[in-house]
């Protein structure tokens, strides 16, 4: 019929129009892709490839093997320990804080205040954070002094030192906890009130509810975000540098020293160091994304 033919030819014109448009769209997107290639993908690839090369440019796995030498291995190990400690600490404390803010039946102004503060605090990392903790728990810090003055308790006498593994983990919590709260709050919102009520009317108490309903639903988010926190801490350097200078041997500081002055006396080993970092943070983020996908499936 005439109408159909008309629609058909209109559609053909539209199709041609769209292809032409897509061509222009590619031009519009090109600068971004070129930029990403030049300043994100290529530099990273260069390092990854370089990790498998030796000084003359031949393929080798020696660099990866050299990563297991004692000083580097201990650097990775300390980095992992600090990241795990601050991730778990941040996750647990962040969970309770998020729960309190979202579901604690507190006054209405608590939640927005909490969220705003967490937004600020999660960005308050790096050197200023290090300075702040030095002023708090350093040898001449306020809390240290107050504890000596009022409780006759010198935390440094117990072997605590801010400029150490535990001090760094404690400092990292300052941005890890807010990050957990920010990511977890929407997930907690997804816990519908009806589920709590349904479980109650079926005879369950709080324990049953958490064990059978809430935690099973939340665990992908909880675990995933903890892993994200781990990756976040692993890649951090400025805070550690501001706190301990280069005295604490963690991977990022080691890499920093290597970039500045080739302390490893082997360029390619430096690339391997970077590769190790990429693998750890990359794997962590992949697991996080997979877990996030799983949790979204249920909370549709």
């Amino acid at each position, binding site marked *: 019929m005439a109408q159909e033919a008309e629609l058909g030819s209109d559609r053909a014109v539209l199709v041609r129009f769209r292809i032409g448009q897509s061509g222009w769209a590619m031009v519009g997107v090109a600068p971004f892709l070129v930029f990403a290639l030049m300043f994100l993908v290529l530099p990273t690839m260069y390092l990854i490839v370089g990790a498998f090369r030796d000084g003359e440019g031949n393929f080798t796995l020696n660099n990866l093997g050299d990563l297991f030498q004692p000083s580097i291995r201990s650097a990775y190990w300390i980095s992992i320990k600090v990241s795990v400690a601050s991730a778990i600490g941040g996750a647990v404390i962040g969970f309770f804080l998020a729960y*309190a803010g979202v579901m604690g039946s*507190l006054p209405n102004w608590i939640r927005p205040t909490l969220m705003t*503060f967490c937004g600020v605090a999660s960005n308050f990392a790096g050197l200023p954070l290090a300075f702040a903790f030095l002023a708090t728990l350093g040898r001449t810090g306020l809390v240290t002094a107050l504890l000596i003055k009022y409780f006759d308790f010198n935390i440094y006498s117990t072997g605590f030192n801010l400029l150490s593994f535990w001090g760094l983990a404690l400092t990292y919590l300052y941005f890890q906890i807010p990050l957990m709260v920010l990511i977890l709050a929407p997930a907690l919102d997804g816990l519908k009130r009806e589920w709590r009520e349904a479980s109650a009317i079926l005879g369950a108490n709080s324990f049953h509810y958490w064990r059978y309903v809430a935690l099973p639903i939340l665990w992908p988010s909880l675990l995933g975000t903890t892993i994200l926190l781990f990756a976040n801490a692993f890649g951090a*350097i400025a805070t550690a540098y*501001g706190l301990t200078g280069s005295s604490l041997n963690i991977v990022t500081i080691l*890499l920093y020293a290597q970039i500045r002055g080739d302390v490893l006396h082997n360029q390619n080993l430096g690339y391997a160091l970077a590769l190790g970092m990429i693998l750890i943070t990359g794997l962590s983020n992949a697991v996080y994304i997979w877990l996030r996908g799983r949790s979204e499936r249920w909370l549709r």
Partner: protein
Amino acid sequence: MKQSRFGAWLAIAIGTVYFVLPLIATFEFSLRLRRGEYSFDAYAIVLGDPRFQESFLYSTIQAVATIIVGALLVVPTAYFIRLRLPRLRPIVEFITLLPLVIPAIVIVFGYLRLYNSSSWLPLTATTRTSDLLLTFSYVVLALPYMYRAVDTGLRAIDVRTLTEAAENLGAGWTTIMFKVIFPNVKVAILSGAFLTFAIVIGEFTMASLLDRPAFGPYLQLIGANRAYEPSALAIIAFIVTWACMGLINLFGRTPAMAKR
């Protein structure tokens, strides 16, 4: 339910102590410069220090440059992906995730190897090009946040209909981009901009390794050599971060959104 409220208050109280105490301690520490009494001397020294002013200015200019370059890259991309190239979306979103995965130190390490004086694009050769490289590295850092902000902003306005209306009225794509799209995502860009500003001002690793006189390296220098001034700087940095976040919240509430 009463028990949970006590527990909730307890959690909030502990959280407040942990987060507020360092700020109080830092502020108190920064007032201790003059022996025996509290004073703002540390602040006076810091604010009067020409290196403070220079490095803060440098970082501010870098932040503005980052925002401009970032917006010019992100807005057309987000627009075309949304409108014409939905199949490229996963790739682009993956790219915007990379800066969150690859640590900043690794990225700048790559720059130093790939673009040093003996490479095909010697961006580290002169100070001007080094500045440019630093800007690009900041754009990479800010990319995830800028893209998400703009993409969300584009989703809120009906891009397709706006474009078709504009084309209907005879506009070419530059007109559409700069007269129709950009103004409507201004708010989204602004919120991404304040976050970028906060990131750039506080950034240390990239500026230090590229050897540029930014605020981050200045902080590190003061921290290594002075006792009380670092605390003053920390307070100043915290105030700046607060201001940025506050402005994000302020601009986040456009009249249109307030109606919702």
